[in-house]
């Protein structure tokens, strides 16, 4: 059993207690400690800036050309916080409870409570930085509502909340760069973790511009490297989003927790052809006014406007009369998939359902709809060349977020001392399903308000010997990275990493996607093993790696994705229950809903790398404060 080091005492007091227990580091001594931060999204940028403000020497790494390009920038909808500005009965307690329930009781209670607790500070911090949140005419902050909750607690900046929050964190980071407390390494990708005496002491990076492999050492390493949704090739993630940093840490001994927990977002623009490179999300808010339907008959090839009202099946309204089109993401996605499986999908691919605004346009008028959703409609039209004011949108679920990630304890430290994991890269707060507008909240909570305390405590407790660049651990890790790159070059096949990645994506989507079963998962594992061989026999990368080369970058990432895919399937196979985004077809209610098995699976599955056979460790999940129940949205 894993020890998550949760402080004792009542849930309201735990974080206060922990902060008080923490060791402090004398301000004058802080600059003697180097902290390495990998990733400059919300979690990475905010942690790096906060630690630098405290006086630590911080080195920040990103494979982007600028910290501002991290994928947090693409979040649209908003950020949750328990401010209760709308006087609708919100509280820390309620945000905590909604998150636990939304996550289908597979998240760690103490972490979630702390997340809800610091959520209010995040809004203060961001406003102070100049984030232009939407306002009321009186000048106070305004909110909107989001799926899975009954209060209005989402703060937003038009449809670009992630962008504005990231620019806020980025500006704080650049301020520290100017003060020379942060050293910024852009276009540098972390390719391995340096461990000495069992502790994380540094990383090995590749300079993406000139191919130089260098080591960087310090006293602690923070990974804020995002999620691995791109294991499915097609996802709403950015093209470069990858698992390499996390996977390298896993290969060095960090545990990977709940890797199979994936969030599939119901409202994405469907795939248009073989050339598709990524999927585009349409904000969840569309489900407030759009009605989801498919034809009643299978194989109905008429276009949408020709299908009369009585021959349409508004399936979400039919199946979930209480929540209707506003059921949580996992529920909506699965229902859409079921319709397509029945042969009632629409569009040329038959892998889509309609999201229809005709009724709303009749009710509120086109102008009002345009005012509320104009930018989303425009985006849809740009991509599909169809006018959603005239014909219903076609939507289909797509991989959007992963709840799984590296295992961390209450202090966000992995099982490797000195290795901290923040944001989407860790597993901690969202259980088996994340609620909308909670990813931004978690990234910033980890970066601004949690990691700076726990890293300080770790530094305060250690007596770390200096580590030199000619240390054996540094040399060996650097050499391993070089050998691996040489390995790619030696293959001299004729397939690009992208081609192989597409193949992996198809296996993952078919067998480890919205619905999973034992047979399919076993099949997937064997297919992935074959694909791995194919990769190591047919890959092509350019021989010159001393220049910008996306093929070399992708090769390493795809190699890691293939291994991760296998572990995800294994994790999904082992978790013989359905919960949140993880739907095992064998475990469902008669109505086709998820069926949890709390007696056997109320735990975090943390996997340890052991060559071919990963070892499973469990962390028991106990719910002392949240009342455990079956999720019901009918």
């Amino acid at each position, binding site marked *: 059993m894993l020890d998550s080091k949760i402080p004792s005492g009542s849930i309201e007091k735990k974080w206060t207690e922990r902060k008080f227990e923490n060791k402090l580091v004398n301000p004058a001594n802080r600059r003697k400690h180097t902290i390495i931060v990998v990733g400059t999204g919300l979690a990475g940028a905010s942690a790096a800036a906060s630690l630098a403000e405290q006086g630590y020497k911080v080195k920040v790494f990103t494979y982007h050309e600028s910290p501002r390009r991290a994928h947090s920038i693409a979040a649209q909808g908003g950020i949750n916080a328990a401010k209760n500005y709308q006087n609708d009965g919100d509280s820390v307690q309620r945000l905590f409870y909604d998150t636990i329930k939304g996550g289908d009781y597979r998240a760690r209670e103490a972490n979630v409570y702390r997340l809800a607790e610091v959520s209010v500070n995040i809004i203060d911090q961001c406003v102070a930085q100049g984030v232009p949140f939407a306002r009321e005419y009186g000048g106070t902050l305004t909110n909107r509502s989001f799926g899975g909750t009954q209060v209005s607690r989402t703060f937003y900046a038009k449809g670009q909340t992630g*962008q504005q929050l990231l620019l806020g964190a980025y*500006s704080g980071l*650049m301020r520290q760069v100017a003060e020379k407390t942060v050293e910024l390494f852009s276009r540098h990708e972390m390719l391995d973790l340096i461990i000495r005496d069992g502790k994380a002491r540094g990383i090995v990076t590749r300079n993406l511009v000139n191919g130089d492999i260098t080591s960087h050492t310090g006293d602690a390493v923070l990974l804020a490297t995002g999620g691995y949704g791109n294991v499915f090739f097609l996802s709403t993630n*950015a093209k470069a989003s990858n698992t390499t940093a996390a996977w390298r840490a896993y290969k060095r001994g960090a545990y990977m927790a709940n890797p199979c927990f994936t969030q599939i977002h119901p409202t994405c623009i469907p795939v248009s052809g073989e050339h598709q490179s990524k999927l585009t999300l349409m904000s969840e808010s569309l489900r407030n006014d759009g009605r989801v339907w498919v034809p009643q008959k299978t194989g109905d090839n008429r276009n949408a406007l020709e299908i009369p009202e009585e021959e349409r099946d508004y399936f979400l309204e039919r199946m979930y009369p209480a929540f209707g089109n506003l059921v949580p993401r996992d529920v909506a996605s699965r229902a859409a998939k079921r319709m397509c499986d029945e042969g009632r999908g629409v569009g040329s691919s038959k892998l889509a359902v309609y999201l229809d605004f005709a009724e709303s346009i009749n009710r509120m008028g086109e102008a009002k709809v345009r005012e509320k959703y104009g930018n989303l409609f425009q985006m849809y039209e740009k991509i599909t060349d169809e006018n959603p004011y005239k014909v219903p949108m076609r939507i289909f679920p797509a991989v959007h977020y992963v709840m799984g990630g590296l295992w961390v304890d209450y202090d966000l430290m992995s099982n490797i001392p000195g290795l901290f994991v923040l944001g989407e890269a860790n597993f901690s707060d969202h259980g088996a399903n994340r609620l909308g507008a909670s990813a931004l909240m978690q990234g910033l909570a980890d970066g601004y308000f949690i990691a700076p305390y726990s890293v300080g405590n770790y530094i305060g407790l250690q007596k770390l010997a200096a580590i030199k660049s000619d240390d054996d651990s540094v040399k060996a890790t650097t050499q391993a990275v070089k050998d691996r790159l040489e390995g790619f070059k030696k293959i001299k096949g004729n397939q690009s990493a992208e081609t192989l990645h597409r193949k992996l994506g198809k296996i993952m989507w078919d067998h480890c996607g919205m619905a999973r079963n034992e047979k399919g998962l076993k099949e997937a594992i064997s297919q992935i093993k074959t694909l791995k061989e194919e990769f190591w026999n047919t890959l092509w990368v350019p021989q010159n790696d001393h220049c910008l080369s996306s*093929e070399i970058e992708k090769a390493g990432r795809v190699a890691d994705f293939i291994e991760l895919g296998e572990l995800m399937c294994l994790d999904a196979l082992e978790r013989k229950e359905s919960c949140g985004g993880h739907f095992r077809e064998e475990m469902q209610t008669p109505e086709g809903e998820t069926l949890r098995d709390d007696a056997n699976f109320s735990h975090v599955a943390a996997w340890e790398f052991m060559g071919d056979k990963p070892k499973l460790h469990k962390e028991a999940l106990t719910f002392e404060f949240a009342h455990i129940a079956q999720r019901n949205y009918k």
Partner: protein
Amino acid sequence: MKLKLKIWRQEGPSSPGKFVDYDMDHVSPDMSFLEMLDVLNVGLVKKGETPVEFDHDCREGICGSCALMINGNAHGPETGTATCQLHMRRFKDGDSVIIEPWRAKAFPVIKDLATDRTAFDRIMAAGGFISTNTGNAPEANSILIGHDTAESAMDSAACIGCGACVAACKNSSAMLFVSAKVSHLAQLPQGHPERAKRVRGMVTQMDNEGFGNCSNTGACEAACPKEIKLENITRLNREMVRAVFKD
């Protein structure tokens, strides 16, 4: 449809570049422009040739990575669109398409179509922030900001830092980028204490980076994928004049 591509190929920052022709035979009108380049690259790999490097990431028009000059237009012919949101249906069968990197002294070419835009980061470091440490913040609603002011600041803040303004400008001026940031923070009360210092710092850094001077042509506004307004430049100029009187 078929296309004739003419793409700028350049080995590295100091090597000379040249145009190379590529014929594309099966381009679907539903493809995005970058997906068309993906297809080209997969084909090049099959032949053992080095693929074309270009910056891209989110492919939904927000990260600001993609940056292509397409037939002389920054981000291509469509207004209010980043390269990644441009679709091939905008082109006709048999079209020739010239693809180049951003061209500006301050944006040196790294390889092929990828340029180095870190000058923007250095401009940001020279003042594009509000100096507040984590934990310093007062209660969010204690700072009242009118609805319209917040919206206007948001419009300026929407800049994605792609550099299209520099690429479109005949002077390679970065004024639209710098002015968007200055305007965003100058409009908000939180940004007022450092107002003069900020605009001075950012403009000085902009000049030092080797960007050209603004000649009020408005080409930047026309090319901007986020349709950042020229009014921001007016505001930047005003902020600079104001800064003379405030130390």
